[in-house]
């Protein structure tokens, strides 16, 4: 967390005098910077904000306007205009295009097709869709949440103004009702449209087709997903035009996606799911360089150094929009009064810390090019569960310091000697956003794969048992949870005797798929089953244990006449055991959170970590591949690893998530 404190320290230094200045002397020279900053703020948030700054700006609205013209956001300015410019993997684009072609032109289809596009922010979901629609000559009707004007900024030329205004008049209605209306209205409208087109002639039916795009889903659907599901299924049966839903994935919204589009619903409504990956850093930096070149050509800015671009590309975590914003920002910096800038943005933006750091990185860059500082416009640095677990499981050791012989153990304890860890597990864990308990479960689900001998296993399981035992006392659970996790992690690491020293070679090298913790599911199901057992057989007043271990199993054997169909079903369920001798975990248990790589590794001495990299690469490679070809995953792993250096196309895939 040092980066936060350092940046805050920096920021604090700056703010104090600045505040003073601005309050004592309103006509201070930094004012124009304020304007610029707030203007930028407005743009980046795509929502006008009534801050004191902006109100003050109104007096000088003319210059403000000028500024706006000049300072068009690069992310808008350099929006891709053709398929080739999209910084998205070709296959993905084709996938979307194919879907649009297939479903948009079909008139005789009984059901409306639904497409769900998911992916992290700035992966180019909307851009891609709009671009393709334009290419294919489809008009876009977009839903936006009434209260938010956010979508206004994104309205394309194809957007149907009249449609939107009618929606607006219903402002007294709830968002969900509005949403419902929107979809049905779009339907009706579409129906009419089809009618006329079919009456006229069939020749231009492809031209007139509309795609309905939903980007914001009203919040109350999150609370009550079933409502949303009914609307969707209704739409599917009555609607004509294809519906595209774009959902932004973030570390905590994947559950929302799960809630709104559970697997069975997706299956039931034949929803196609295309998942976008974050833009790979290489692609990103290419795009950034292109943009810079254009700008430089226009003489608007000075050429920044290549390392700046690289840093931005790395830190943006595959978010094209934020990368471009950061770049624009970085280039402006040279002429800006930095102090005031930081001050004004930091009041409103959560990323203030990173803007602060950015300044720092900028200056430090000038002295030496070693970018060990955390970076401009970087995404929230919380490391995603998937990667954290990977890091713990593929732990690394560094060479022991030979100058400290005291650290060596006496000979009879030699077996316990380990080289120091290169990363502290506690530090890694502190970057996740999950509770220690949760993390522990995930680790537990996965660690066994990484041990090779029974002796290691014995010790590791012992540590896990210890870890759980520590959290037994519920009064102290909160405090002990972190220690408990530390014991589990360090216990596992210590037990893994294959990797005692920094130069030990992993015997079971290679990528192993990670899995989601099964425990929560198991314990929930146990509770549910127990509750239903009690409920169904409540007349017999058996103790729960007796009921489950004796009565129900024997009822299953004796088949007495049960009158309640629920009982019959339950007894059948409870007396059946899955016996699969060839053990394999179901695919959906795989942990493949399509999350952004915000690994620390990128920002540390990357040489030392080069060896680690193939692991990470292949890790993500599996996920990328799994979307396309479920079966060849395992065989493709090795090749993916090797090809990484040579083929750019593949790198995209690997780094996409």
């Amino acid at each position, binding site marked *: 967390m040092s980066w936060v404190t350092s940046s805050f320290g920096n920021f604090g230094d700056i703010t104090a005098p600045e505040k003073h200045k601005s309050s004592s002397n309103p006509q201070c020279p930094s004012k124009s910077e304020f304007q610029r900053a707030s203007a930028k703020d407005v743009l980046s948030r795509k929502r006008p904000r009534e801050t004191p700054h902006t109100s003050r700006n109104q007096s000088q609205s003319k210059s403000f306007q000028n500024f706006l013209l000049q300072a068009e956001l690069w992310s808008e300015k350099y929006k891709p205009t053709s398929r080739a410019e999209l910084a998205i993997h070709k296959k993905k684009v084709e996938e979307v295009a194919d879907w649009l072609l297939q479903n948009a032109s079909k008139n005789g289809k009984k059901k409306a097709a639904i497409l769900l596009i998911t992916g992290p922010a700035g992966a180019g979901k909307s851009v891609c869709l709009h671009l393709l629609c334009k290419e294919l000559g489809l008009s876009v009707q977009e839903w936006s949440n009434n209260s938010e004007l956010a979508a206004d900024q994104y309205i394309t030329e194809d957007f149907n103004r009249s449609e939107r205004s009618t929606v607006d008049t219903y402002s007294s209605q709830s968002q969900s009702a509005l949403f419902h209306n929107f979809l049905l209205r779009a339907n009706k409208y579409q129906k009419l449209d089809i009618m006329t087109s079919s009456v006229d002639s069939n020749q231009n039916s492809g031209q007139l087709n509309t795609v309905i795009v939903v980007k914001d889903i009203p919040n109350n659907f999150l609370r009550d997903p079933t409502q949303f599901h009914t609307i969707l299924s209704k739409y599917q049966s009555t609607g004509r035009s294809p519906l595209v839903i774009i959902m932004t994935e973030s570390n905590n919204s994947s559950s929302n996606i799960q809630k709104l589009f559970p697997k069975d619903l997706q299956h039931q409504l034949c929803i196609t799911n295309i998942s976008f990956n974050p833009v790979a850093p290489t692609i990103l930096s290419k795009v950034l360089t292109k943009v810079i070149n254009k700008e430089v050509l226009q003489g608007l800015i000075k050429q920044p150094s290549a390392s700046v671009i690289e840093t931005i590309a790395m830190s943006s975590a595959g978010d094209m929009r934020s990368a471009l914003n950061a770049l624009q920002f970085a280039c402006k910096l040279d002429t800006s009064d930095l102090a005031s800038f930081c001050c004004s943005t930091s009041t409103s933006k959560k990323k203030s810390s990173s803007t602060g750091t950015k300044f720092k990185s900028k200056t430090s860059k000038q002295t030496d090019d070693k970018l060990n500082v955390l970076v401009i416009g970087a995404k929230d640095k919380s490391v995603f569960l998937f990667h954290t677990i990977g890091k713990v499981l593929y732990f690394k050791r560094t060479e022991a310091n030979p100058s400290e012989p005291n650290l060596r153990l006496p000979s009879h304890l030699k077996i316990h000697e380990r080289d120091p860890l290169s990363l502290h597990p506690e530090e890694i864990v502190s970057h996740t956003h999950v509770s220690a*308990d949760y993390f522990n479960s995930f680790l*537990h689900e996965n660690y*066994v*794969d990484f*041990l*090779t*001998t*029974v*002796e*290691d*296993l*014995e010790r590791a*399981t*012992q540590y*896990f*048992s210890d*870890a*759980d*035992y520590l*959290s*037994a006392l519920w009064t102290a659970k909160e405090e002990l949870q972190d220690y408990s996790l530390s014991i589990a992690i360090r216990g596992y690491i210590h037990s893994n005797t294959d990797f005692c020293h920094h130069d030990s070679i992993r015997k079971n090298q290679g990528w192993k798929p990670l899995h989601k913790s099964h*425990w929560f599911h*198991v*314990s929930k*199901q*146990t509770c549910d*089953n*127990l509750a239903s*057992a*009690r409920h169904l057989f409540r*007349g*017999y*007043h058996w*103790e*729960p*244990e*007796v009921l*489950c*271990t*004796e*009565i129900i*199993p*024997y*009822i*299953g*054997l*004796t*088949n*007495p*006449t049960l*009158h309640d169909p629920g*009982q019959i079903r339950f007894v059948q369920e*409870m*007396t*059946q*055991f*899955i*016996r699969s001798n060839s*053990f394999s*975990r179901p695919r959906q248990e795989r942990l493949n959170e399509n999350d952004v790589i915000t690994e620390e590794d990128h920002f540390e001495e990357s040489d030392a970590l080069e060896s680690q990299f193939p692991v990470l690469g292949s890790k993500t490679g599996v996920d990328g591949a799994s979307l396309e070809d479920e079966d060849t995953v395992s065989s493709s792993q090795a090749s993916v690893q090797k090809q990484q250096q040579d083929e750019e196309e593949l790198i995209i895939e690997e780094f996409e998530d």
Partner: protein
Amino acid sequence: MSLWVDKYRPTSLSKLDYHKDQAAHLKRLVEGGDFPHLLVYGPSGAGKKTRIMCTLRELYGAGVEKLRIEHSQFTTPSNKKLEISTISSNYHIEVNPSDVGHNDRVVIQELIKNVAQVNQLDSTQQKNFKIVVLTEVDRLTKDAQHALRRTMEKYMATCRIILCCNSTSKVIPAIRSRCLGIRVAAPTIAEITQVLTMVCKKEGLTLPNEMAVKIAEKSGRNLRRALLMCEACRVQQYPFNVDKEISEPDWEIFLRETATMIAQQQSPKRLLEVRARLYELLTHCIPPDVIMKGLLKELLSVCDGQLKAEVVQNAAYYEHRLQQGQKSIYHLEAFVAKFMAIYKRFLEEGIADLF
């Protein structure tokens, strides 16, 4: 549905099949007029509930057999709503307070208070107290047990409490000393055999004596299980054949297979397979301690003397943790891994000795 266990459950003290002395004592206790709180304890399937119901019948007559299932609601001091289902007649109420987990104290206090404050409807009845039957008292929290002890004293005038549990180890001494302890030992093999024969006779079936003995032995002196087994055999393989295996519930077979898997191979991969099976067992509501004991029993059969002692020590160690901890799977797994390690060493030593 009526299983034999329910169908042939004795309903009066004089009809009990075994522990006849104890039945006589209970009868005298009822006649004595001064009925104390009771603490009925003994292993599962020994007939504790049967004895309690018989005693109640002795106290109040056939009225206690008119049972109704009710849902009572309680509110904790923190305003949490608790629901618990009770089985009651006009004279008694039976409840399993451990159903509500940590909030059992509230349920106990409120329930007994409610019962004690409502006077006996039938004033002509000779008994001027009601009975509260609490099952699984050994699963009560300490907090609830202390509350129970006070409540017991407070409402002595209008209600009596019958506590039912498997072992008194987990019952606080203060409660034990306030109750008359009734120990219900498990029936002997001979007694079970006798009951089985009797039940089969009533069903109009012929049960060979060897078969009855075989079932009784397999039941582990658990009459309920013996009757269930017997009924399962009746359904699946009548006429009874002594040579045939007695039908077992699927989870026991599954557990045994799991144990065999552990003994066959010791590797991390095998542990993962075992884990999947343990999960399967847990989702079928087989309590983790039962799993542990089942595994132990099967695993011990492949060990020799000294090894057995070591394995048992470990089983006891991890079972204790399992009761204390949150995630039973951790401890079950730790035990399995421990066994694997011990057993592997044992096998390797055996091989080394050969050369």
